[in-house]
């Protein structure tokens, strides 16, 4: 199960939207909660619709539109999304209306848009796409589940182009609530200091990224996605290590073949050790990069890492802003992403140059 990445659309806290620039102009923040640089939605949605939609729906639709355009695909053979929280803004809106008005005078709009499958179904609705349509909602595995399904769909059906995306939004209320559960840093941190912040909690983030997975070769393809792996709640560091080496073995590779490893380092002193351990035991001499200082931490943040990996392979460059140490390779053939969300959801992606 492998696929080419044929096109990408991504909304993030960086200037990644509707551009082929690779972090040439860095946006630096000093915060504990990163929000997206949002597109002008009226280019993608009719203004009446845009006003009624929640942010994650709009970001998802905008990102998927760019992805479709970028890949030159008009009608995908499947639409598959991953989102941990779905349409949180609409969910909160309806919930508060219920509580504040004691279950009276409610209108259906926010309820209708609160279901987790709103983005995948709105894309289908806009495209009049009646093909396979799926939404995964499993916390730190949401996006990975969608990618796995995308790879399976190319394998077990006659699909040629599968639109796969991840999206999650942060709201002020949800930040307050999850801050109480100890998710985020108490203090503001500058973007480039996150990696060494060594305090509990991470910097929250959000985003939406869509990828056209295809089994058709083309000069324009970004990269080849060769595998995705999920390791749930590993009992030990060995389990992660074996997971990665098994995956490489299956693909006929060794750790030496990996030209760049992208780590999900979030600056959360409680969870970052697994990255440093894996680096030390498996990838001690390999070039290292990271991404969560730019995307922030969220359950589907690996969609930003997948964009980063695809861009590294396509442009054969690793911007300084994402490098840890130095780039030791001129020619980058294989990139591995190792991410974990709150040390429970460990995931690995393997990509190669086309």
């Amino acid at each position: 199960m492998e696929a080419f990445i044929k096109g990408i659309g991504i909304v993030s806290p960086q200037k990644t939207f509707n551009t082929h620039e690779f972090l040439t102009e860095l946006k630096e923040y000093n915060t504990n909660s990163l929000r997206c640089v949002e597109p002008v939605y009226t280019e993608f949605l009719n203004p009446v619709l845009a006003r009624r939609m929640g942010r994650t729906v709009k970001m998802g639709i905008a990102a998927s539109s760019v992805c479709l355009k970028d890949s030159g695909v008009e009608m995908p053979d499947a639409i598959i999304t991953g989102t941990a929280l779905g349409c949180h803004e609409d969910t909160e809106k309806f919930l508060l209306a219920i509580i504040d008005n004691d279950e009276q005078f409610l209108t259906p709009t926010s309820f209708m848009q609160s279901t987790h499958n709103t983005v995948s179904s709105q894309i289908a609705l806009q495209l009049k796409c009646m093909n396979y349509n799926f939404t995964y909602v499993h916390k730190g595995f949401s996006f990975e589940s969608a990618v796995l399904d995308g790879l399976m769909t190319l394998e077990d059906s006659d699909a040629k182009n599968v639109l796969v995306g991840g999206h999650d939004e942060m709201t002020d209320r949800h930040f307050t609530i999850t801050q109480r559960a100890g998710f985020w840093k108490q203090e503001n941190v500058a973007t480039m200091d996150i990696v060494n912040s060594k305090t509990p909690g991470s910097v929250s983030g959000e985003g939406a990224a869509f990828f056209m997975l295809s089994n058709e070769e083309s000069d324009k393809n970004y990269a080849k996605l060769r595998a995705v792996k999920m390791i749930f709640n590993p009992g030990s560091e060995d389990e992660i290590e074996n997971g990665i080496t098994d995956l490489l073995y299956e693909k006929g590779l060794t750790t030496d073949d990996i030209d760049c490893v992208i780590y999900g380092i979030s600056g959360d002193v409680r969870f970052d050790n697994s990255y440093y351990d894996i680096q030390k035991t498996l990838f001690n001499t390999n070039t290292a990069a990271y991404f969560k200082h730019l995307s922030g931490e969220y359950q589907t943040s690996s969609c930003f890492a997948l964009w980063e990996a695809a861009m590294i392979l396509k442009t054969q460059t690793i911007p300084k802003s994402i490098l840890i140490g130095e780039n030791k390779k001129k020619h980058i053939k294989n990139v591995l992403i190792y991410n974990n969300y709150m040390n429970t959801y460990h995931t690995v992606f393997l990509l190669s140059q086309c």
Partner: protein
Amino acid sequence: MNKKIYITGIGMISAIGDNVEQTLLAVAKGKSGIGELDNIITRHRNEIPIGEVKHTNEELIKMIGLHVDTIITRTTLLGMLAAKEAMVWAGIKDVNEYRTGIISATSVGGMSMTENYFKDFLDVEKSGGWLKYIETHDCGDSTEVIAKYLGIKDHISTISTACSSSANSIMLGARLIKNNIVDRVVVGGTDSLSKFTINGFMTLMILDKEQCKPFDAERKGLNLGEGAGFIVLESERAAEGKEILCELSGYGNSNDAYHQTASSPTGEGAYLAMQKAFKISGLKPEDIDYINAHGTGTEVNDMSEGTAIERIFGNKVPRISSTKAFTGHTLGACGGIEAVLSVLAIKYNMVYPSLNHINQMSELNFTPTKTLTTDKPINNVLSNSFGFGGNSSALIFSRH
């Protein structure tokens, strides 16, 4: 990809019973579980009948044998009971003997707790053990607690495609086995009632103030319900030597792409989903002995689904019924619950009555089966599930 998918275990809990045995008794008596709501305080309590599981959370906790103070949601509790029943049925003692996964589905996850504490969550002056419910809100949380309860960790995921969620989890499970990612997988879904859901459906004005009447000309809407339904899917290798209940022979997923919450008049999504399921199973419409319809009892669904069924089956629609007048519409769980009922239909050569049906719809030619029927072999069952966002799924269960 021609691998067979065997069903070796089933489990369910709903308004008509805590397990498969109680469900069968209720079906035999033709007894609906839809009635008054007891466990949720809502101003709509006396306005709408509901298919509620008649146990408090404390009672469910006791039934499972958890500590009384366990921080856990109703969605999870219902799921644990049904998934465990399915595992026991399948005789799985050593989970690690084969690569085992779990795919669950839910529409609201831990909402029934979030809605009680949401204001307190936001009030930083207030504090208490209830803060732990912050982390039970996500849909995936219920799946994980169920997975840990069953000892499953090889593959774990959660699906939310509104009311087609658990039909999709069953379909995904079959594909995971066919793609050699797992050898067996517990699939289905769980959803508890919540004020959020009740009020949402109230605003859509698609709730019947009386017992729902699927496929009746005078139908006024659906009755909400809650519950969980899981089945165990196994590869031929993993199921060797076991009692096979039946096979999952076909599945199809499509999108209606018509409206965020309403189905198209011609049932395009439903039609395509059924067509795909036939293609995978290699069966023809005339092979189907019974259709367990989505049949919610809303004006739009029954018209749209009925039309799609007639497009597939012409004037030879087999026996058909909706079991939602028994259980209520259990949303993210209905595909799982109806999968269990479909398996039982094959096991006992049984067609469930479509309760409350009196008046023939003028737009459709078929009439749903009105009484419990056991006079003919049931070898192939088609089960439909459709949801908000146009998500349409069809499953075909076949005698082994």
